[in-house]
């Protein structure tokens, strides 16, 4: 079985490039068994969305709404 270190590495890489068929199979098998890595994968998307919102000035809008 893939280690969590390798599984998170593949999850990270999948944000830059398409994984090979073999990598996808191994990752899917790992994620079925591992809640930690499954959460990690969800968190990567949240982090990406947050970074884009930040670049688009969402933090300044949040500031204005409250002040």
């Amino acid at each position: 079985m893939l280690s969590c270190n390798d599984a998170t590495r593949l999850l990270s890489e999948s944000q830059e490039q398409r994984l090979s068929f073999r990598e996808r199979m191994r990752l899917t098998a790992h994620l079925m068994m591992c809640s930690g890595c499954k959460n990690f994968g969800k968190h990567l998307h949240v982090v990406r969305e947050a970074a884009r919102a930040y670049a688009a000035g969402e933090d300044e809008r949040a500031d204005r709404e409250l002040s």
Partner: protein
Amino acid sequence: MSNPEAEPAAASSSSAALQDGPFIEDLRRQMIKFATLQLGNPHWAEDAVQEALAGAYKNAGAFRGHAALKTWVFAILKNKIADVLRQRERTVEVSALLREDESADEIAALFDERGFWRAAERPVGWRDPEQAVHDRQFWRVFETCLEALPPQWARVFMMRELIELTADEICDALGITAGNLHVTLHRARLRLRRCLERNWFAEEGKRPC
């Protein structure tokens, strides 16, 4: 690498990108964020961004279209930032490398000898992630976590996620290999994710996972 669609109207499309007010405004905002986090000083950041944009206006023929302008401007900005950092004490550089070493050790400590999550480090479910963007406190945490990354990790992460450059563009701009890029992004994400979880998403009512 060249973009065939943009080929015919080279001169007009480059000046069109520079005259697109909202686009330049967005670009400027992204650049200021990037530079401020890199330099830790808003005035230096402002200066570096000003110079990079001035360079773009001077060399309007060097790129075609919006995406190319963005890549081009960030490559210049990255050099300006490197110049400013180089002019500072050498101790800054030494401490940055030290930080990178320490941070790599911290990342290694997330996993046991077999490479599986240590129990205390296993990622948990996050509360209301879509609510966070509306909370100004969240953005303070987000900035603090970004600033806590070693400079090179932060640089690569921001070029990828804030500026949305492609992996190839980042490798070209920083002169690093694809392997290096993947390792750096993996570490930066592990660390940033952990910081956000500890300081925001799992703050109250930690759930057993």
